[in-house]
């Protein structure tokens, strides 16, 4: 050991100590740079989803309150028929779903509203601005044609997936899934955001199933403890326009061990 001695407040360290410390600092800085890039590249949970934050648009269509509030908007240029409507889930700002009473009052009515678009894959949602929902006076043939989108039963199926809150997962947060997001998903679903079973497919796009009880009611409060984990659900699947709905008693949902 040589006899270099250095006190913290001295202007300059002796050369031996100085060069050792400089090497250590250079190593740490290089390490920070490498780690920053490595950790960024290694991320696997950030998907392709969009929340058009700050961009408010107007929408017109038929409001449906069942099973969760959504808006049926006729596709431009399409003739009347089963697939001529796009379905937009309707939610409120922050972690709240659309007011159920309001949705029930306007069920089946033609409305105008303003909101911000959220989308991922084939799923679309509108974050509705305050009191912007206005009932249209002239219920055109729109309603008549929308009412033809009757549910189609696809039979009993067993599905494995993750319960996500549709709002965050579709784009308000990205990544908006799995354990780190669990508490938020629980708050959102508790606040009325439609709970969705996300089924990831190895070959093919992810599938989204709106969760309802056997008798078709919202199950927000019953699924809270099963959010953001692998679960298996067996139930009746039906198609209502563009929406897939999974009917099952939440008590029969099974948590899969991880």
């Amino acid at each position, binding site marked *: *050991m040589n006899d270099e001695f250095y006190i913290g407040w001295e202007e300059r*360290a002796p050369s031996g100590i100085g060069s050792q410390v400089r090497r250590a600092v250079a190593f740490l800085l290089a390490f920070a740079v490498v780690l920053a890039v490595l950790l960024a*590249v290694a991320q696997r949970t950030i998907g392709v989803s969009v929340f058009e934050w700050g961009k408010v648009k107007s929408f017109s269509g038929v409001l449906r309150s069942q099973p969760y509030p959504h808006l049926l908007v006729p596709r431009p240029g399409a003739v009347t028929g089963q697939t001529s409507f796009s379905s937009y889930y309707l939610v409120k700002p922050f*972690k709240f779903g659309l007011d159920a009473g309001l949705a029930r009052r306007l069920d089946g009515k033609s409305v105008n509203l303003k909101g911000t678009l959220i989308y991922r894959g084939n799923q679309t949602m509108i974050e509705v601005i305050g009191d912007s929902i206005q009932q249209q006076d002239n219920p055109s043939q729109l309603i008549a044609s929308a009412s033809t989108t009757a549910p189609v039963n696809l039979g009993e199926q067993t599905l494995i997936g993750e319960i996500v809150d549709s709002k965050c997962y579709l784009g308000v947060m990205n990544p908006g899934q799995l*354990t780190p997001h669990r508490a938020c998903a629980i708050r959102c679903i508790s606040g009325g955001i439609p709970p969705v079973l996300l089924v990831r497919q190895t070959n093919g796009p992810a599938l989204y199933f709106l969760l309802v009880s056997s008798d078709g009611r919202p199950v927000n409060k019953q699924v809270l403890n099963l959010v953001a984990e692998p679960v298996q659900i067996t139930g009746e699947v039906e198609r209502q326009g563009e929406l897939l709905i999974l009917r099952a008693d939440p008590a029969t949902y099974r948590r899969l061990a991880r």
Partner: protein
Amino acid sequence: MGLEYKAVRWNRQKRIYDFALVGGVGAFLVLFTVSTKVLFPFVTGEILLMRAFGAAAFILLHVVLCIGPLCRLNPKFLPLLYNRRHAGVTTGLLGLVHATLVVVTYHAGGDTNPILSVFKGSPLTGSIAGVPFQPFGFFALVILLLMAATSHDFWLANLSAPVWKSLHMLVYAAYALLVLHVAFGVLQAEVNPVYVLAVGGGLVVVLGLHIAAAFREVPTDRAPDSAAGDDGFVDACAVADILEKRARIICLSGERVAIFKYDGKVSAVSNVCQHQNGPLGEGKVLDGCITCPWHGYQYLPDTGASPPPFVEKVPTFNVRVRHGRVFVRPKPNPPGTRAEPAPVEAESRSSRLEEALTSASER
């Protein structure tokens, strides 16, 4: 002495330290956010920042924890230790930004009080997802912020060094909580092995350095071989083992003693600096004073008192040199008590005579 403390002033060394610290943290934050945004353009801003700040805090905590054992293994790293507090406070602030983003993004705007939601929001379900990883982070942050708030010398002086030191040992609890926070949080989602390896590697380095440093110190911690004589003096080490103006640290009845050799004399004082418990035995005698390697507090070797106007005092130990060996009485004298330094050079000539005199007086 209550409110007295000596502020260590701003200087070139501190400025370089902070420059490197801010530069390193800034580089990490910018590179992480830019790379993520380029690779995954749909990432949302608040989560991007949440990840960047959380990762930066966790990594910086590793650096903070490694500096201590590194310095014990090689004193040349000591300059990294002097302003380690700046790195510690920075860690707490990075964690605070991360936590604020988490509360605002994940917990606010819902049907529950956001802070309550941090706890309520992770219901125990018996599965891994039910492990409350957010409360782990919350408590770790409380510790880090408590440490940051009391990091100034003002608190050190008011809480007294031992209390302050134990408070700041909580950093290990914070680290343990954060390892759990990360393991049961983001590692449950980000399955790329890079993350597991990074967290595991960090744990191995932190533990490994602490174990290595502890092993290094085992020999000094062991009690000297020969038992106490009639008069209680204990064989501590050979005079030749001590470098001029430097010390050997030995452990006597549970206390660490620094035995200094200087100007043909030997003196022993407590190893613990009054300022921040710095290791005086790793210091040097400068201008006739034992100088602490951490922040340069000084003590006179014979009295253990700081030269006026300073008032710090450390306990002294009575010493004696016989046949080229240093003997120390394990019982400390009250701080600031003068203990006669034992002459080294005259030792070989006079020890016989002295021994004869002692035995004569004892008769």
